[in-house]
């Protein structure tokens, strides 16, 4: 025994020393990138996929994707930034596009500019615009909410309309079609939640306007697009071509149950539409209707979010390189997340991949992803400003007045007063 120890001890000690120093070396080189985001089936799953791809090429970098609710991520980010406790923050965080400017402007220097590293010209321009502050681009554009008009081909055919009749129409034409659809099929044209200003935002951005102008000042009473949008919503209501919905789930129920003939919303709804196998082959997608004003287009956006790197984080360089390698260049990654998660990214080159070119049997063989990526490049860029959520509340509060027949100019004045009161 003694002999055994004596002969083996040096070796064991040597091995122990070697492994200890080996551990020390890996500890010094291994980097872990912490990421905060929400939705385990969407953002979290996509980020894990992205991380796995990067780790394959860079085995020394691992990822820790932490999932919280969206409001929880915002709360934690706010507390972490306000307390100035740098080690309490992640390396990368997901921020909803409507709130991006609020964080960038409220916490100057907190986020790392990516302009030098990432080639932002390859992304949809409107996504880049919303994360730009004083000439610097701060984020990595992620999922898009490019909008489309989803319609039931079977109902419209019964009413005498072909898919061609749905292309590039105006909202006035949309309402006419809606009236005929109801007369012939008894179905309403769309679901509408009077407490959700989403449809107003879609119409307004499609004409290149927002609640705020380029300088971030409220743009309400003199905003032709907002006026036209409110007028259109008023017309939809007085023509009574909508099925009222109470809250998000109820609104989703209007089309999953087959009660309405169309849906105008962001591309992320596709998965929900396709979740009804009995409706396969009955749906088509067209560009959204346009307002009848100058600058009106058939492309808009609803929702979406992007990745941001914290300036104070120790692994800043690795985090930026990771985002650039995967989200900035990996076309194949975009095919995977589209196929597996239904995520439409904002990298324009991704549309050349196989998944984007595939025909979708659910939509009768239409190449819907190609269509959406066409429209993605055309979404007008606007300044979401720092008070979009407050403005949205003001609009929602005034929607009932619109139904009661209050003139649109007065509604606009009321919205303007409410916003000015809130953001002083």
């Amino acid at each position, binding site marked *: 025994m003694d002999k055994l120890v004596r002969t083996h001890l040096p070796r064991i000690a040597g091995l122990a020393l070697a492994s200890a120093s080996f551990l020390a070396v890996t500890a010094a080189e291994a980097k872990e990138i912490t990421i905060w985001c929400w939705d385990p089936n969407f953002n979290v799953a996509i980020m894990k996929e992205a991380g796995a791809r990067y780790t394959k090429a860079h085995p020394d970098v691992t990822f820790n994707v*932490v999932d919280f609710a969206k409001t*929880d991520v915002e709360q934690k980010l706010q507390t972490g930034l306000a307390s100035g406790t740098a080690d309490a923050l992640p390396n990368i965080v997901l921020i909803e596009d409507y709130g991006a400017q609020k964080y960038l402007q409220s916490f100057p220097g907190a986020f790392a500019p990516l302009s030098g590293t990432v080639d932002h010209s390859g992304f949809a321009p409107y996504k880049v615009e919303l994360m730009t502050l004083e000439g610097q681009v701060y984020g990595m554009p992620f999922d898009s909410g490019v909008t489309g008009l989803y319609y039931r081909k079977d109902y419209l055919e019964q009413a005498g309309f072909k898919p061609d009749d749905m292309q590039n129409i105006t909202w006035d034409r949309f309402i006419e079609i809606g009236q005929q659809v109801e007369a012939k099929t008894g179905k309403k044209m769309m679901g509408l939640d009077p407490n959700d200003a989403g449809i107003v935002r879609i119409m307004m951005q499609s004409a290149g306007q927002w609640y705020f102008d380029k300088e971030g000042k409220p743009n309400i009473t003199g905003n032709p697009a907002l006026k036209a949008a409110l007028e259109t919503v008023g017309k939809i209501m007085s023509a009574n071509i909508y099925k009222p919905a109470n809250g998000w789930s109820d609104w989703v129920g209007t089309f999953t149950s087959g009660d309405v003939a169309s849906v105008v919303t962001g591309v992320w709804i596709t998965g929900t539409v396709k979740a009804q196998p009995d409706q396969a082959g009955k749906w088509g997608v067209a560009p959204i209707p346009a307002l009848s004003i100058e600058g009106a287009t058939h492309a808009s956006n609803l929702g979406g979010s992007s990745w941001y790197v914290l300036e104070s984080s120790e692994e800043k360089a690795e985090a930026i390189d990771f985002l650039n390698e995967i989200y900035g260049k990996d076309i194949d990654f975009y095919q995977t997340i589209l196929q597996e998660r239904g995520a439409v990214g904002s990298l324009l080159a991704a549309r050349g991949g196989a998944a984007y070119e595939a025909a979708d049997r659910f939509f009768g063989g239409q190449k819907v992803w190609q269509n959406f990526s066409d429209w993605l490049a055309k979404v007008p860029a606007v300044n979401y400003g720092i008070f979009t959520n407050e403005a949205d509340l003001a609009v929602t509060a005034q929607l009932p007045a619109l139904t009661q027949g209050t003139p649109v100019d007065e509604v606009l004045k009321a919205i303007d007063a409410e916003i000015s009161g809130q953001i002083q």
Partner: protein
Amino acid sequence: MKNPARAASAVLTYGFVGLMAFLSVFPFIWMVLGATNSSIDIIKGRLAPGETLAVNVAKFFTQVNVPLVFWNSAKIAILATLLTLAVSSLAGYGFEMFRSRRRDGLYRAMLLTLMIPFAALMIPLFIMMGKAGLINTHIAVVLPTIGSAFIVFYFRQSTKAFPSELRDAAKVDGLKEWQIFLYIYVPVMRSTYAAAFIIVFMTAWNNYLWPLIVLQSNETKTITLVISSLASAYYPDYGVVMVGTILATLPTLAVFFFMQRQFVQGMLGSVK
């Protein structure tokens, strides 16, 4: 029941009580029914038992590291409860037993802290924990809760009913103050402790905002944070969320039923 007016009033009373009972039980029934239905059926408003319970449970267990998450919650809740009871009951005992000129001023100042909303304390507290290097630890979740002004208040009020003769007798028998507390006070105040246990355990188990702020990784998260994350997906699977909610309710339910008798006694006043 011969008197028709009396019968009518009984019908009204029972009708009202029944309605109230239904209103309070309904969310619970809905939660249980929801766990057996698919997300789509829940959205459609289906109110009958469905067939997807097994699927929902299986999904919950694959999406969530259930043993770890429950262990985190249990650890925090039990630690917080034991420490709060120990510290706050001592304080309540002290406030009532020891007379001094500053006692009531101090007591009132302590009660005033109940009026400060937690949101105002959050950032300073977070900075403190950051400086102490306790961010992302369960200790950081427990520490701020153990000096609970409300529980001190509760113990002081209950201690008013503790007969001072008992303390005097114990003193005559030669017991020291800590012995009086441990061997006389604690056993006599059993039901007060039980009631406080339930209150503190429930608060700690359901605590949301502070754990959310201070816990940073998937490994330290509690069940409330996990459910919140599941429920905020773009398309939440409500069936799975309901399974999680039911599982999260069970421990508090168990604690409550286990200590129910003492709880009621404690609320009525522990010393008869």
